[in-house]
């Protein structure tokens, strides 16, 4: 325990040491004074003979110290003081590091949760999502209801097959009535996913087959509406006014399906319970999702063979409705499905952030180079005074590491903040948003990168500087010309690199900005101002016939029309821009399908009232629906969209032409006559392409399907649309009141103005654009900072040379221009590099662009101008400083 005792007695040791030395000196002084010296002379002589007291005392103390730990502590203290002396440099360095490290960590964390992490299901790599497609048609489908059952029965490659389709229910009896997003699932779905419920159980096969009204709640619904009641099992909840028994609650993190982020959050799940109409609807509605788990040992290729086999079994039953069609089946892994849409955006974000990180490192390198160069003199003096080279290097290393640590700390805070902000601000359409968490390994990696950069850029020039040139530098009073120039070349190269990277980001953000602008300019096909819309769904129990439903619509329409300021009221099964629509296969009379031509699938809207007038959808030919079309036995009519008319009727007047649902005209289906052509509306967000559309009156919807009318059921899910002269939002309470007057139990859900809805569809693109522009701005400012730094350094370096030139007659203006020219030259070189990189890399952006080519010249011009202007500005300051050098003073101070 020798060392322990020594540690505690160290203070005493130091005191003893000081006193011993003191005594030594006193004795000697006394002796010398005895011999006749004066006190002064004695003291001086004693000190001279003793040596450097402070140094000796310190050396003696060092004997008792632990060199590594204490030295490190001293170095840190020293480094802190050094940094405090240059607060500007320290702040910029720390901020640069923080931005790079924090930004990179946050971006990676977001991407990791959404793109990379395994799905929260057991062995999720074995889960696939099955799709059917018709070889002759390019559209992407899920599967039909009967096929779900067939695959469950016949496939051999899967250990579990589950089907699902979305559903909505009005929930009453659990707090305020609301409209719940739900999913109908086969009993096999939860076991296929491998998820156990938190409470209770999931559905049994019997419950599924016999349409027993049971339900499984989501965790959030259980918590919010039932206060996490532990006795919840066995209680009931009214869905569309029918009591369902609660048999289970799913765990907190469970979401299914996962495809549309926050928008897809399901409140509860109910058994699929196929109706007999669904079971007989072969080849009709491909909206049913199918997820399956590969059996152990079965490869994807083997599974595909099995799928083909089952499809071959299904093919013959297609003969009745669609001869000549060839059915195909394919699948993707569930994870691939989930991330497909998110991948382009997130990849771009990740790429952009990586660029910023690179720029930040380059900036840091530059900063450190400048700083080390400026301290050459100080280091030289310290070396000459006897400091060990090792000690100096250690101190420089500590300084760089300290900067990195501080930058890393701020970066960590920034990362946490950014991730929180991302969770709130990211578009709702990204999946798995609530699973984002900070990825600390990434943080460690970027921190390591920054630390290495700091060390390299702080140490390497210092190492070079602590050699013999030190004495030269002291002698000249200025850095040796050779050294300074090579350092300046390095710095210039770094800045050019930065500018190239900034250019890349500027071009990318410019492209996105133009895309966003183009999107805003796009005509949606209707007028969204002054329009209010809301949804409701009439429960089958109380509205068992279409007639009853129609009575409700008519009654509501009349009441709303009586409200002051309302100019038009209409109903539709779907509204524009929200991306929902039901597709129908349509064949026109006399139309001959060319080889290879796809089928016409038109998105069909069932409308009532003055729908077109309410949205100001323009009538191009013919007429809107009116009283003629309403009575029983009225001739079947339809209104088609302009693209439909052009594509299918090839410029002829479509009014009066006939068509049928299905893939051929000579079938038992009833003929529908076209009575009007309207302008196309955007069914999805404004940057999606327009598709073929058609409208039918609600009252004729069942008749138009002829033998398959039973599949449609009663059309009870509608959106009401009303146009008003005032602010539409003000009418929401009145609308709700009117609905309650007609049916007190009916829930009016999602009342929004049409403007709000359209804006919501723009939010995803808006987000991309804002983020990338923020990145570009950051990159630009970092680069401009770099230009400024290099230029300032170069001017300081060459102040003597400039002074001489000015003394020899160069005017101030010439000096200014020459300095600026250097800045612009550097920028030009960097820009050229950036342009070349843009040409290569912007095609990765293609999926995010709208209405703009990846090499859009206006954007590139804009980026060039911005960069040139910026660097001229950044260079102006040092240029002016160079021009204002007073030659006499500069030369004299050397």
């Amino acid at each position, binding site marked *: 325990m*020798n060392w322990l005792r*020594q540690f505690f007695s160290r203070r005493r*040791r130091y005191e*003893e*040491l000081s*006193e*011993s*030395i003191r*005594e*030594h000196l*006193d*004795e*000697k002084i*006394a002796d010398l004074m005895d011999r006749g010296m004066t006190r002064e002379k004695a003291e001086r002589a004693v000190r001279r*003979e*003793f*040596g*450097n*007291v402070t140094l*000796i*005392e310190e*050396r*003696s*103390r*060092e*004997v*008792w110290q632990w060199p590594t730990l204490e030295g490190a502590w001293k170095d840190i203290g020293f480094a802190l003081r050094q940094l405090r002396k240059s607060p500007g440099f320290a702040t910029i360095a720390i901020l640069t590091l923080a931005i790079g490290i924090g930004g990179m960590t946050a971006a990676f964390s977001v991407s990791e949760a959404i793109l990379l992490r395994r799905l929260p299901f057991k062995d999720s790599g074995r889960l696939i999502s099955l799709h059917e497609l018709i070889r002759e048609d390019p559209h992407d489908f899920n599967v039909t209801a009967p096929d779900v059952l067939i695959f469950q029965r016949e496939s051999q490659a899967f250990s579990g097959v589950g089907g699902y389709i979305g559903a909505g229910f009005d929930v009453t009896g659990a707090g305020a009535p609301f409209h719940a997003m739900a999913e109908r699932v086969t009993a096999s779905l939860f076991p296929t996913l491998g998820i156990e419920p938190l409470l209770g159980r999931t559905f049994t096969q019997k419950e599924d087959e016999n349409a027993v009204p049971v339900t499984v709640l989501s965790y959030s619904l259980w918590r919010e509406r039932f206060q996490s009641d532990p006795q919840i099992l066995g209680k009931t909840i009214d869905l569309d006014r029918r009591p369902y028994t609660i048999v289970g609650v799913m765990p907190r993190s469970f979401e299914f399906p996962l495809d549309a982020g926050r928008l897809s959050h399901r409140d509860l799940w109910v058994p699929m319970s196929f109706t007999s109409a669904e079971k007989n609807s072969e080849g009709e509605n491909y909206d049913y999702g199918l997820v399956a788990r590969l059996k152990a040992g079965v490869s994807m290729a083997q599974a595909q063979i099995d799928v083909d086999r089952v499809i071959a079994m299904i093919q013959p039953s297609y003969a009745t409705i669609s001869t000549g069609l060839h059915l195909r089946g394919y699948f993707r892994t569930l994870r691939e499905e989930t991330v497909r849409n998110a991948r382009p955006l997130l990849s771009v974000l990740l790429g952009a952030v990586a660029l910023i990180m690179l720029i930040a490192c380059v900036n840091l390198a530059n900063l450190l180079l400048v700083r080390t160069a400026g301290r050459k003199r100080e280091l030289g003096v310290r070396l000459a005074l006897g400091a060990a080279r090792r000690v100096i290097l250690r101190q420089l290393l500590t300084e760089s590491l300290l900067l990195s640590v501080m930058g890393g700390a701020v970066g960590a805070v920034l990362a946490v903040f950014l991730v929180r902000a991302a969770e709130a601000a990211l578009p709702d359409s990204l999946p798995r948003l609530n699973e984002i968490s900070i990825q600390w390994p990434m943080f460690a990696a970027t921190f390591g990168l920054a630390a290495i950069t700091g060390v390299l850029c702080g140490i390497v020039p210092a190492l070079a500087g602590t050699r013999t040139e030190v004495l030269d530098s002291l002698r000249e009073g200025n850095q040796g010309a050779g050294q300074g120039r090579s350092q300046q070349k390095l710095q210039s190269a770094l800045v050019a690199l930065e500018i190239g990277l900034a250019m890349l980001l500027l071009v990318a953000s410019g492209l996105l900005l133009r895309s966003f602008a183009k999107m805003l300019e796009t005509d949606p096909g209707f007028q969204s101002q002054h329009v209010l819309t809301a949804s409701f769904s009439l429960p089958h129990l109380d509205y068992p016939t279409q007639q009853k439903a129609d009575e409700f619509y008519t009654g509501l329409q009349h009441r709303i029309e009586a409200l002051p300021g309302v100019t038009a009221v209409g109903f539709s099964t779907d509204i524009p821009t929200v991306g929902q629509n039901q597709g129908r296969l349509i064949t026109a009379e006399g139309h001959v399908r060319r080889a290879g031509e796809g089928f016409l699938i038109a998105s069909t809207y069932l409308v009532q009232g003055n729908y077109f007038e309410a949205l100001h959808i323009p009538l191009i030919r013919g007429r809107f629906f009116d009283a003629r079309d309403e009575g029983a036995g009225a001739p079947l009519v339809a209104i088609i969209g302009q693209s439909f008319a052009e594509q299918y009727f090839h410029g002829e007047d479509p009014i009066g032409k006939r068509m049928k649902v299905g893939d051929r005209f000579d079938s038992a289906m009833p003929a529908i006559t076209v009575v009007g052509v309207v302008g196309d509306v955007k069914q999805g967000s404004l940057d999606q392409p327009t598709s073929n559309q058609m409208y039918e009156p609600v009252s004729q919807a069942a008749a138009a399907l002829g033998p398959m009318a039973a599949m449609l059921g009663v059309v009870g899910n509608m959106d009401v649309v009303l146009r008003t002269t005032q602010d539409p939002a003000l009418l929401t309470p009145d609308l709700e009141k009117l609905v309650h007057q007609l049916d007190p139990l009916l829930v009016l859900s999602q009342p929004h103005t049409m403007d709000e809805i359209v804006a919501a569809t723009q939010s995803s693109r808006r987000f991309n654009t804002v983020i990338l522009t923020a990145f570009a701005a950051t990159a630009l400012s970092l680069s401009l900072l770099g230009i400024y730094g290099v230029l300032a350094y170069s001017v300081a370096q060459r102040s003597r040379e400039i002074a001489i030139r000015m003394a020899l007659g160069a005017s101030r203006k010439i000096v200014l221009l020459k300095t600026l020219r250097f800045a612009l030259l550097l920028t030009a070189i960097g820009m050229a590099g950036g342009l070349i990189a843009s040409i290569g890399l912007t095609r990765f952006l293609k999926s995010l662009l709208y209405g703009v080519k990846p090499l859009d010249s206006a954007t590139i011009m804009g980026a060039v101008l911005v960069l040139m202007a910026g660097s001229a500005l950044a260079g102006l300051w040092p240029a002016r400083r160079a021009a204002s050098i007073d030659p006499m003073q500069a030369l004299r101070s050397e």
Partner: protein
Amino acid sequence: MVKRSEHRDLFPGALELMILKSLNWKPMHGYALAQRLKDISEDYLQIEEGSLYPALQRMLKSGWLETEMGLSARNRPVRVFKVTDAGKRHLEQELASVERMFAGVTRVLALAGQ
């Protein structure tokens, strides 16, 4: 250390040996020790007085010396360095080893020319 061309450098450990030997003969404080070394070597060995102190501290740390209070020549209270038992043992070993070394070198120098 101030070097002068006509004086050689000390071999490593020489300073510690001389300090130990001197203190073994009589415990002294720093100044007295420095004086004694100067006197005995007749100024031959130029040792900066201050450089004794790090050496003294090293020997304190190694446990060969200890300090106690004593009196100086002027009857002032001073800290005096004294050799410990461990120090005495170390001194004996080192002296023996140095003598062996010198004997060897002498023999080589005497006989190498033949």
